[in-house]
């Protein structure tokens, strides 16, 4: 292998170089900006994380798994996974092998950035070796891989359902330019290398193409326009990249270490959030998964569009989208890059200004403290919603009575809200005041277990309360424990139950198994077609601020449709709000897990 041109330069590389320089500067500045937007502590944490071998290992694994192999997409849909990883991994390999070739054959040219990209133009093959053929083969192989991915991408544009997606994002103009540039890069590369394969060498793909081309074109100088076109396609793609969905390619590289360093999202479009915004590939997985999308008009409120509006600073739409969301967290779970749609929204909500401040001075926690004179082991906090679903309270207390539990009810005659509804509305100061008041009551009770049956309360108790020495249990955990300890026994029936994972309990707190154990003990457990992490919000969520009652019916009906596809006899849930919401439209009984248990206690 030898250099064909002593200068090692041709003007066609200019578009590529302009694009490359631009994108590198842009990403560099962007990365600095994101890091600068972190607060001091987070920044320190971020840098230190690179010194931690465990985190570093995780970073490397994530970079490979997420950025190159798209493992999450493979899990979702094989075709979708292949399409993405073929392009990403193939391209990555072409670049890597390109560099290896330069390093081996023309090491003096290694500092020329364009050399590995346009290698086949600048060199001529001198001898045919096994090693050379191996690289030629690899290059053609990965090019083929990419091309197959590109073909799939084209098919996906027309028939997204083949890839398991009912709805995809509507591409913006820059997305389209980027898309067509990307699509054209590799066919052009194939063509270009095909033209020069007789000089620079090639393998099954390029060499064969060369033969075909030569059968009707003899002048090898025809190659130059194609190389120009290849370079222009690259240049255009890189120039448009920061303004298109393809920004996710570089952004994700930054997001992964940020996430692994454990840095929390604090602002809706700064720091981590900015990294997340730019990591959003606009794939639109969040559209189908969003419970709101049961009403087609709502698909414009999915996280992908929030990200887009955040980039455009369209305040009105950002407000609408962020207030409408139910905060079920499903989009965050399914997002291939890990954009936290729910947290971005809460962060946005918390920036809203309220001219009427909260004033809880008259809400007197002393009244509750005074009511709890005797110390009990378990303190049962019903929460506001349970006051409206007394059957749950009755069932929970019946179970405790049966188990001989020593308990007292903290808010039997009305109480102070746990604070979560206020927190998700973005008014943290107000929520903190409620947390403070409740903490005082809980601590003064002297109980060692705080039992809650509302997942909304449970999540805030777990995450935002500091109740050292007090175990916080959701009633699903509590009942499961009573059963496994043999303190209560459930008479199993033939009833077919489907269990609905409440958002705040499942995705929110990771509790999936305990309720299933309990339900399985009471009857036959059937699963909904989407369940566990991807369970669909009941539609009653307090997460949404602006969604009116009449707009929620379709969402509940959609959730019910999925829940009942296994023809269960009854629906079991573990949240008073889900229960009330489902009951409104369900054609079969809906019960809380405690009710099902209490009914069948032996």
């Amino acid at each position, binding site marked *: 292998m030898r250099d064909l041109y002593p200068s090692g330069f041709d003007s066609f590389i200019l578009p590529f170089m302009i694009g490359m320089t631009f994108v590198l500067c842009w990403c560099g500045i962007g990365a600095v900006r994101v890091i600068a937007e972190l607060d001091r502590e987070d920044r320190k944490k971020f840098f230190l994380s690179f010194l931690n071998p465990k985190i570093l290992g995780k970073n490397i694994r994530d970079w490979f798994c997420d950025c190159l192999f798209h493992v999450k997409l493979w899990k979702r849909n094989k075709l979708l996974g292949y399409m993405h990883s073929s392009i990403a991994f193939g391209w990555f390999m072409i670049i890597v092998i390109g560099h290896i070739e330069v390093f081996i054959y023309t090491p003096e040219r290694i500092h020329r950035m364009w050399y590995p990209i346009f290698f086949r133009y600048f060199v001529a093959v001198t001898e045919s070796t096994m090693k050379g053929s191996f690289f030629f083969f690899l290059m053609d192989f990965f090019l083929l891989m990419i091309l197959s991915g590109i073909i799939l991408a084209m098919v996906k544009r027309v028939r997204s359902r083949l890839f398991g997606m009912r709805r995809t994002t509507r591409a913006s103009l820059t997305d389209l330019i980027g898309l067509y540039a990307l699509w054209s890069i590799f066919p052009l590369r194939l063509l270009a290398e095909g033209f020069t394969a007789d000089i620079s060498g090639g393998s099954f793909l390029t060499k064969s193409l060369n033969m075909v081309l030569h059968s009707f074109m003899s002048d090898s100088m025809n190659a130059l326009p194609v190389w120009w076109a290849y370079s222009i396609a690259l240049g255009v793609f890189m120039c448009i990249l920061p303004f298109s969905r393809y920004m996710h390619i570089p952004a994700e590289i930054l997001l992964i270490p940020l996430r692994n360093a454990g840095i929390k999202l604090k602002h809706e479009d700064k720091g981590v959030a900015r990294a997340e915004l730019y990591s959003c590939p606009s794939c639109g997985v969040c559209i189908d998964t969003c419970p709101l999308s049961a009403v087609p008009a709502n698909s414009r409120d999915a996280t992908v569009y929030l990200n887009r509006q955040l980039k455009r600073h369209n305040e009105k739409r950002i407000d609408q989208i962020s207030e409408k969301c139910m905060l079920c967290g499903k989009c965050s779970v399914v997002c291939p890059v890990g954009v936290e749609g729910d947290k971005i929204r809460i962060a946005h909500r918390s920036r809203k200004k309220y*001219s*009427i401040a909260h004033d809880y001075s008259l*809400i007197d926690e002393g009244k509750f403290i005074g009511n709890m004179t005797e110390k009990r082991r378990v303190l049962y906090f019903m929460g506001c919603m349970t006051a409206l679903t007394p059957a749950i309270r009755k069932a929970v207390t019946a179970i405790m009575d049966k188990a001989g539990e020593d308990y007292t009810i903290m808010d039997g005659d009305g109480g*102070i809200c746990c604070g979560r*509804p206020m927190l998700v*509305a973005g008014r943290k100061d107000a929520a903190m005041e409620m947390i403070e008041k409740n903490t005082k009551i809980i601590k003064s009770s002297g109980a060692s277990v705080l039992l809650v049956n509302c997942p909304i309360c449970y999540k805030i108790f777990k995450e935002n309360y500091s109740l050292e020495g007090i175990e916080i249990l959701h009633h699903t955990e509590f009942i499961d424990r009573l059963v496994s300890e043999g303190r209560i026994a459930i008479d199993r029936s033939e009833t077919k139950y489907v269990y609905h994972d409440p958002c705040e309990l499942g995705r929110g707190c990771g509790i999936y198994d305990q309720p299933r154990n309990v339900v399985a003990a009471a009857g036959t457990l059937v699963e909904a077609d989407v369940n566990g992490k991807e369970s669909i919000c009941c539609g009653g969520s307090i997460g949404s601020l602006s969604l*009116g009652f009449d707009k929620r019916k379709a969402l509940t009906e959609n959730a019910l449709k999925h829940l009942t596809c296994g023809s269960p006899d009854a629906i079991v849930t573990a949240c008073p709000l889900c229960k009330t919401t489902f009951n409104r439209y369900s054609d079969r009984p809906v019960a809380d897990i405690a009710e099902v248990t209490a009914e069948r206690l032996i």
Partner: protein
Amino acid sequence: MMNIFGFRLSASSAIDMDKVDRTLFDKLCAEEPDARRCMSCGSCSATCPAGEFTGMSVRKVLHNLQRGKEREALKMVSSCMLCGKCNMVCPRGINTRHLILSVCRIYKTEESR
């Protein structure tokens, strides 16, 4: 001013609809059109956990705002914990939480004005 008489004129407690400025309430209705649909059944007041301590009542808030008694309304609103019980019990399906948040954004207290 205490005067030589030992008593003074007191302002009328009556509602004068002629003097009610509807701008802010109309703005509120643009945000939450259901605000006008309240039929004063009182479910919200009865279920409100804050109401027990502060007399908070969404019905009264709405009512007072429509009658130009903003001060009374805003005082009540500030004690809302946003728990959503009123939302659950409202027979007309009024999105009371959004309503209250919108009130908190649109209206201003006399001190902050």
